[in-house]
């Protein structure tokens, strides 16, 4: 109370102190963020440097430039007693796996999403509830039973089998996201098309799909990356070397007791991460929106 009538001279002093005080939280903020983020940057930087260097001094400082670690691109990796399959077989398999997965997911997701968003039929509420429930369902707990089913269908140890499993596990989320895109298209637009004499399919094809194209693109990228990164299902349900993918190839190298070559491991890792990095750099904004809406991983 007394402070209000203090002489004017006091005022500037108080102001500078409070300004300093106001800055402290920001300094702490930047400091904390910097310290916690630095290790992540360093780790990925190490991946890059270690792949181009003969050895690392103190484990972290590159010593001499070499392309030796990238030799796996033109010759098959050989370990004591075993020859690894070609990296290009693994790359092709990963590409097929992620590509087919994306196509299936988008087609099935668009069909289901449209039906759920725009059509009224008995059981619609029930299906929507079920779709929501499945988002939270612990699908990995079902792997044992999925093994029986694949075995029964004759799809054990085949990429197609795992593609179907992965599509099924992701489709509730995908269909739900795509339904959201359809919900955002104003019904007036479709209505106008119908009045102008288009049939429903033509309206759908010429008016609705172009509007939700950006959404479809985001979903496609998201599912391609999910397929490209998939490890657990491929590791569990695919055994033969002919069907090896990049994730299982890398895991095989990592767990090889005869190998302690971080140069080779980091080069293969970087090679494996190329599509992820490309997509990430160009689409991180839409990617973040999609994964904010869903993304089940831990």
């Amino acid at each position, binding site marked *: 109370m007394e402070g209000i009538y203090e002489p004017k001279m006091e005022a500037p002093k108080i102001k500078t102190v409070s300004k300093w005080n106001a800055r402290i939280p920001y300094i702490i903020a930047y400091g904390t*963020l910097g310290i916690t983020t630095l290790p992540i940057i360093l780790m990925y930087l190490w991946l890059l440097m270690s792949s181009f260097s003969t050895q*690392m001094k103190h484990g972290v400082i590159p010593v001499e430039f070499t392309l030796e670690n990238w030799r796996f691109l033109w010759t098959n990796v050989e370990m004591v007693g075993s020859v690894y399959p070609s990296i290009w077989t693994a790359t092709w398999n990963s590409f097929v796996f992620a590509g087919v997965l994306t196509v299936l997911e988008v087609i099935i997701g668009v069909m289901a999403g449209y039906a759920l968003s*725009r059509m009224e039929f008995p059981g619609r509420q029930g299906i929507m509830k079920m779709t929501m429930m499945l988002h939270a369902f612990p699908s990995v*707990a079902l792997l044992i*039973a999925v093994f029986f089913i694949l075995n029964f269908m004759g799809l054990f140890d085949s990429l197609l089998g795992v593609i179907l499993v992965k599509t099924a596990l992701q489709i509730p989320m995908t269909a739900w996201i795509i339904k959201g895109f359809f919900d955002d298209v104003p019904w007036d637009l479709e209505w106008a098309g119908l009045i102008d004499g288009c049939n429903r399919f033509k309206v759908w094809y010429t008016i609705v799909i172009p509007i939700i194209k950006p959404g479809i693109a985001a979903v496609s990228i998201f599912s391609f990356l999910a397929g490209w990164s998939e490890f657990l299902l491929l590791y569990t349900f695919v055994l033969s070397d002919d069907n090896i993918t990049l994730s299982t190839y890398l895991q095989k190298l990592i767990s090889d007791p005869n190998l302690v070559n971080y140069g080779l491991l980091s080069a293969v890792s970087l090679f494996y991460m190329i599509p992820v990095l490309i997509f990430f750099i160009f689409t991180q904004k839409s990617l*973040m929106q999609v994964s904010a809406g869903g993304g089940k991983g831990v």
Partner: protein
Amino acid sequence: MKKSKFLINGMRKHSLPWLMLAPFLILIVIFFFLPIILIAVNAFTDMDSALQWTFNGIDNFKKMLLDPNMPEILKNTFIYVFFTLAINVLFGLVLGLLTSYFIQKESVGLLFRTIWMLPRISPPVVYVLLWLWFFDPSPYGILNSLRALVDLPPGEWLSSNPKTAIVLANGMIGASFGMIIFSSAIKSIPENLFQAAKVDGASQWSIIQDIIIPAIRWPLMFVTMWQLLSLLTSYEYILLLTGGGPMVESEVLSLYSYHKAFESFEYGYGSAVSLVLVVIALGFSAIIWKVFGMKKMMGTSRVE
């Protein structure tokens, strides 16, 4: 006569949506519903690698109670879920606050958030390789290299502290999930609330405590519940990092069911453990469902 005609018309009218939903429903039936039934049935058999369905009543559940590994596995599960969840939610909140409230410049905040997304978008095998290198027992591992700089002997980190390793590795991934959700929630708080608080002379701490936290309490609860559920049932990173070892020191319940089924081929017992997990998870889902009123998210169709 009239009724059957009505029925046919009804079917014709409704056949299109069902046709469009068919592939979706078939996949869900084959890979969700059928497995649930199979797990539930199989949990009462002693199926092994011979794949014979021999029912043995509740023997598997008795075995689970008497399993000498069970106390340690349950303890591990609790430690793993509790500490990882704490990192996910609290550190996620810190990251969200720092990148969207303290750093007002959108481009800087986005840059940091992008970097934090890196572990999340990296393929699990690559991400775990980075941790393996970090903890490597040889003098080339980063932790041991750093210790060598101050003349400390190298340590066998993964075998001496497996639980810390799995908590850190999973926590870093989960924190970015919290970060994304919290920062978009913080951004949707009206700017004038902050300005009014500042004019009134509120400290940063009271702005966080009295404005931000109450405003994002729903996302906070959602992330907590969702992550709790995911952590209980997922094991991919643990499988890659420690494989549950050494012995069962970092084995959690979900990984145990995987190991029982796919390593020791005790499908019946593995299914019983899975069934327990599924029941727990369904309980949590029901709570999430109830608390967040999923019904609100489902309007009726806008057409017809």
